[in-house]
């Protein structure tokens, strides 16, 4: 099979782990894979107990996100399955993807975070609804902080006094995550962690 990113034939070196199917086969070649840089950072935020990010936002990642989200190449949802699964495994928690606004989701034809989790074979629950269509990147810090709540709990959903993990593709200013975490906590969640695929530097 060809690499999903560079379309060159993939050369897979056989390993014992792949033979006994411990290691999930990757969709991209080693050269493309090496372009992505791990950051493995854990931060603490307001209203949120921890935020774990896996990769840095570099040129390769920018191109990846462009093709996945803007060119709508849903086949790329599985590129980071191994890493996401690893970051989300062994945790007793309810996994909640950051949702898209319904109109935006129809435009994109898929919800990118849900698809990342599905591809990684991680079970999750859609508990939140996005209530407005605004894009964080177009706002100043003051505007972002003064915004009314971005999310609400889905109707007929009970939030338990337990641990939740929010998942998003990219973490920049943290506004989205804070809003989502606060919504969950106000509804009764005990602990809220977050895992994001990418940590981007906030441009302040």
């Amino acid at each position, binding site marked *: 099979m060809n690499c999903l990113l560079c379309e060159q034939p993939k050369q897979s070196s056989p390993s014992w782990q792949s033979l006994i199917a411990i290691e999930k086969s990757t969709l991209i070649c080693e050269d493309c894979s090496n372009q992505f840089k791990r950051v493995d950072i854990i931060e603490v935020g307001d209203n949120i107990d921890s935020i774990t990010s896996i990769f840095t936002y570099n040129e390769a990642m920018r191109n990846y996100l462009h*093709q996945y989200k803007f060119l*709508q*190449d*849903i*086949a790329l949802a599985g590129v980071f399955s191994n890493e996401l699964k690893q970051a989300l495994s062994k945790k007793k928690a309810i996994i909640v993807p950051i949702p898209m606004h319904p109109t935006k*989701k129809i*435009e*994109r*034809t898929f919800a990118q975070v849900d*698809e990342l989790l599905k591809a990684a074979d991680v079970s999750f629950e859609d508990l939140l609804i996005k209530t407005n269509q605004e894009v964080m990147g177009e706002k100043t810090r003051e505007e972002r902080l003064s915004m009314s709540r971005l999310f609400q709990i889905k109707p007929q959903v009970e939030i338990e006094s337990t641990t939740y993990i929010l998942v998003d593709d990219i973490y920049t200013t943290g506004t989205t995550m804070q809003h989502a975490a606060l919504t969950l906590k106000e509804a009764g969640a005990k602990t809220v962690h977050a895992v994001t695929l990418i940590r981007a530097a906030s441009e302040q």
Partner: protein
Amino acid sequence: MPKSINPAIRDFLDGRIWLRLHTPFTIEDINQQIEAGHIEIIQGIESKLVFMNRKSYTCNRCENTDQSKFTIFNCAKCEASCAYCRNCIKMGRVASCTELIVWKGEQPIYPTSHTLAWEGTLTPRQQQASDDLTRSQEINRSHLIYAVCGSGKTEILFPPIFHLLKQGKRVCIAAPRVDVILELEPRLRVAFPQTEIESLYGGAKPTMKASQLVLATTHQLYRFQHAFDAIFVDEADAFPYKADETLQKAVRKAVKPTKPIHFVTATPSDKLLVEAKSTGGISIINRRYHGHDLPTPAYISLWKYEHHIQKGRLPKKLTDWTNERIKKSEPFLIFFHHIGFMEKAEPLFQLIHPGIHSVHAAHPDRKTYVQALRDKAIPGLLTTTILERGITIQNVQVAVIGAEQRIFDKAALIQIGGRVGRSSAFPTGDFTLFHNGITYAMDEAKSEILKLNKGGGTNPDELPFM
């Protein structure tokens, strides 16, 4: 009223197949033309049931039918299982629920008044080929111009193109590589100053005019349908066109159904030669325009060069070759089969001269370094096959390291040799193949060059090198 044609939309859309929701016009304007019956809507992906009730998909934009290049997903827009094509995704995704549009209303009228401002003259051989090509066009026969590197292929096309333009026909010159398009554009603008010319490649903005002469990478032709009265494919044997069936389909789709596709190359594939020979649409030029021989390759053995370079040692034969070029102030290109290996060798060459650099397809400074080499600011470049064709540097000398590698097939070696001795001021030069064993491809390239130099190949019935 609703029946009225929007000429701006007509001029843009004529011959194109485009995403309904991503045109340079407003959705309302497009809708109005659809209602008026000037635009036809085509479903993006078609599926049909084949064996065992499995679906087989076809992309209606790029005509891809390779099932491994379709991804099926649950679409939030059409709320059903939707398939999309990954083959042409870089041009905006086409899915089952995507609508493509084509212009079916009254066609724009292209001007018949043009001038050919090129002031050179064709050699008798070029003139013959040019006349042959015009004749083939008149009987809608595909024509192959098989002309050695440095024989002035582009100029051969000027008279036939001029002829077509004056009849109000629409013409396309397509090439697999963007470098070729960028090189051709200024020359054609000078040659045809009155003609509406448009260049299309990844990242280029379409002009909103009814362009009569279109220069395009073969990829861009995914977005055309029955648009041209003739297409000239330059460097038809180059990657990716040579290996990508959908690009070949794209060219066939872009030309009007009965109209011909012409090919121009120094290294035609056997398939192209056989086809051209069977129809008779072929012209062969075995001499460079300055009349000198093509440089023949010299073989120099370089045993276990990969091992030595990996260990940080540059073989003496290579050092000697490079030093001689520097001593004689001759610019040089050294071709490698692999980027990683080339980058291992780069610091070793920089010990000889710090100005030596390496370039490859994705290298950000490729254009700067090539220009620096032309300007004699640096002595030479290490390169992948990206510089094998379409590039002219006065008095350049070339070497291949690892000429036995598979990527250096007959065509690649002939093209690489074709960089040498292109100008009449420096009609000869060094063309060395450093190898770890001689391959058939090397021998085939060498014997073809020798035969062409002896005058072989002028009679298409003989075609000795097939």
